[in-house]
């Protein structure tokens, strides 16, 4: 389209309800074609940001632009360019799938002919062909979610905003929806929120971690993981008396911290924390070789986003737990 700038530009966005700031001075941009995840505990302001971007709520202060259009002044233009699936994916349970999609397509301004064509396309894309004549109220949650996604796609939006798209689904359905979202990312820009971390980790290229209305971290998933693996931990199982092993590792300069527990039989299990920037695996192997100990397991634990998330939001949880 004519505008090639970032699809979302948010500057100093604040949303207050009374004295409580649901979103507090948030700024970020999303480039076209990205899949960006908004991650945060419940009540962190994810939904509020999404609602502001979808022109459902106005911001108290700050500016948000979608495809170069101001969400407050050009709400109609923004709504034509985006698709927004609210939390819990509300649908009209009394309508049939096809009827509902056509209704939504017409609401979004498509002509009769265009809406028929697009409904055919999205029905196919989202795997709804078998249920297109069924009443939405009788569908399983997984299918309803697909109906919601089909609705989001029907007018070929530039930006798709999904608020907790996998909430309440079983693992198989979650996987299916995740795959759909990933596929969407090939042709659209997607902003997806979740408080489930593996979710974001698997689908998104970039993450914004929110807490209490503020952005705590914004980086690519890979970078965030790298930031953590500097302090990587190594698991090892070694056939030797636990005190000997402990003494050996405590003497090594590369090991910052070690925990050794006697495991089953002759083996004891060790959890070793390395000094920043050191890979402990060869060190452990050399040590075992030097002492003639048998080595059964040697793994580096990769930090999942979950750890990062817990670490970043830890202060918050501690504050909450003290009173």
């Amino acid at each position, binding site marked *: 389209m004519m505008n090639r700038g970032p699809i979302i530009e948010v500057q100093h966005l604040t949303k207050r309800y009374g004295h409580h700031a649901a979103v507090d001075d948030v700024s970020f941009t999303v480039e076209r074609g990205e899949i960006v995840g908004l991650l945060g505990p419940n009540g962190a302001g994810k939904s509020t940001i999404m609602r502001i971007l979808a022109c459902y709520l106005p911001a108290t202060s700050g500016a948000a632009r979608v495809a170069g259009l101001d969400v407050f002044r050009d709400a109609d233009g923004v709504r034509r360019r985006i698709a927004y699936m609210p*939390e819990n994916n509300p649908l009209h349970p009394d309508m049939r799938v096809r009827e509902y999609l056509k209704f939504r397509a017409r609401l979004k301004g498509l002509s009769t002919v265009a809406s028929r064509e697009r409904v055919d396309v999205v029905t196919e894309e989202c795997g709804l062909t078998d249920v297109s004549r069924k009443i939405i109220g009788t569908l399983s949650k997984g299918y309803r979610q697909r109906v919601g996604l089909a609705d989001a796609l029907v007018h070929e939006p530039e930006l798709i905003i999904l608020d907790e798209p996998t909430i309440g689904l079983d693992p198989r359905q979650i996987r299916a929806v995740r795959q759909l979202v990933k596929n969407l990312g090939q042709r659209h820009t997607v902003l997806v929120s979740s408080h489930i971390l593996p979710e974001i980790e698997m689908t998104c290229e970039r993450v914004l971690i929110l807490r209490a209305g503020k952005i705590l971290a914004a980086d690519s998933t890979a970078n965030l993981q790298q930031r953590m693996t500097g302090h990587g931990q190594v698991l090892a199982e070694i056939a030797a008396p636990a005190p000997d092993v402990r003494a050996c590792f405590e003497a090594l300069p590369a090991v910052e911290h070690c925990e050794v527990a006697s495991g089953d039989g002759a083996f004891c299990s060790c959890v070793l924390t390395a000094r920043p920037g050191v890979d402990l695996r060869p060190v452990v192997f050399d040590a075992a070789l030097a002492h003639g100990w048998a080595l059964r397991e040697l793994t580096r634990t990769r930090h999942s986003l979950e750890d990062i998330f817990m670490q970043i939001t830890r202060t918050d949880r501690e504050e909450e737990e003290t009173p």
Partner: protein
Amino acid sequence: MRQYRTLVRREFSGYFLSLNGYIVLAAVLLLLGGSFILMLVNGRGMAFNAPLTEVFYKTAFFWMIVLLASPVITMRLFAQEKFSGTFEALMTTPVSDLQVVLAKFTAALLFYVVIWLPMLVCLQIVHRYTQPGEPFEWWPTASTFLGVLLIGCLYVAMGCLASALTRSQIIAATIGFALGTSLFILGFLTYGITAGSGWLTRVAPYISVIEHMQDFARGVVDTRRIVFYLSGTVFFLFLTLKVVESRRWK
């Protein structure tokens, strides 16, 4: 315009997709039937000197339909959508708040008209079995329906406002009913205050729904009444629009 038509169609068909609409239809049929029987019983087989529609409207059931059906028809318009969350999905499509309000009002009004259609059948039956050869009273029938429609506009608009105010359909129906009944009861002021020439005495006839309807049932179409109902409708729809917009003021 396209969105408006789509929304009207969706809202109107919504009445027939759920049990809700059929229950209202059945209840109104029951009341109309009661009205019809009362009319026949009161006539005692004798001729009366008034248009049939006037006799019809004087039965209590007539007002029960107006007062009860309109809040029940309108209660779901906004409240249900707000409750289920579809309102958010609706308001993030490129439709304006005005289109939404007008479409919902139109659909409810259409359904309100549909529930009154059986009255035509009642009138036709009476016409058929009495005084053969007499022409059907078209004019009083038409003006009665105009009256029913105008009152319906106002009451449906009140119901829209009530529904926009809350997420609960029960509360919406209650508020709608309270608004409608209040206006109805105010109409009794005309009978209560006859002496004196205070402002109340002068104002009362202008807001007396009962008086107005009596005129319409007699075949009298007074432009003052039309202006009253239409302006009332616009006023309540305006309030509804402001309530819908108010989510942006918070």
